[in-house]
């Protein structure tokens, strides 16, 4: 990765101009040619430095219910609780974190009533309270890395 790759990564995280030849416009900005820019992008996608290039669609508008949940799990019960929580297909991610609330998981499902049922089942099976923290507002999603 050289300085041109770095400036391409930095600039292209911000978004492509909407016109017929967007790479030509960006190449001017980055002081390179359209052809070189396209080749560099392709090489970075092929090598895995970039995971994708294209439109980032907003999932909420495409339907579905997501929530971040947390449980305070007593240390000596961590494994059985982990097994119960992970057994639900609706639990997409689950992380142990260094806090009193030490288990954090994401529920992804098709409807609100499904989420409520899963949370109730987890509480009943573990005997622990689940804090349900669905996002109420989103300010930004995405990551701008400076490389």
């Amino acid at each position: 990765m050289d300085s041109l790759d770095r400036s391409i990564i930095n600039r292209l995280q911000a978004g492509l101009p909407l016109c017929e030849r967007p790479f030509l416009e960006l190449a001017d900005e980055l002081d390179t040619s359209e052809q070189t820019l396209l080749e560099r992008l392709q090489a970075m996608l092929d090598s895995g430095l970039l995971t994708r290039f294209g439109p980032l669609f907003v999932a909420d508008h495409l339907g579905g219910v997501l929530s971040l949940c947390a449980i305070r799990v007593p240390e000596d019960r961590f494994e059985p609780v982990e097994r119960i929580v992970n057994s639900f297909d609706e639990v997409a991610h689950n992380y142990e974190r260094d806090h009193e609330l030490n288990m954090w998981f994401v529920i992804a499902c098709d409807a609100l009533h499904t989420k409520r049922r899963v949370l109730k089942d987890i509480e009943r099976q573990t005997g622990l309270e689940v804090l349900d923290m669905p996002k109420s507002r989103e300010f930004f999603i995405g990551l701008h890395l400076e490389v």
Partner: protein
Amino acid sequence: MNTPVRELAQVRAENDEADFESRLVRATQGGLPLVARPFAPIAEELGCSEERVISTFRNMLADGRVRRIAAVPNHYRLGYVANGMSVWDVDDALIERIGKQVGNLAMVSHCYERPRKLPHWPYNLFAMVHGRNRDEVREKVESIATLLGDRARSHDVLFSTRILKKTGMRLGDK
């Protein structure tokens, strides 16, 4: 006043537009072709003009259905292997402004307002902070704390110590 015939025509046009948008989502969710005119092959596939593809994206960007058309770096490959979930207790009346300010900082992703869960959990703003290591993440969190000053009553940062489960989400914007 609209006649029933005109209303029908309008409904049909709206349906056509919605149908076109969903075909456009399907055609591009895997990525855009890396060619000089990236919207032209999409237009050809969908049987429309290049201009229609561009103007539809422009509308979807304007109303927030598309965040941006951009490159997504693999942050692990770039050395950003550490992340911490920073959490903040900010005044509800100020959260809109503070959320946007924090969400737009470099090295921050996933900036959300979530309900407090008193007494266990006083924080209403979540922002994922990335860095090359935990110290870099902590430094970034402290710089955010400095930026917010007394607008943040308290904050914390939670590091993950183990991944317990990670499956492909059935929903998502990848």
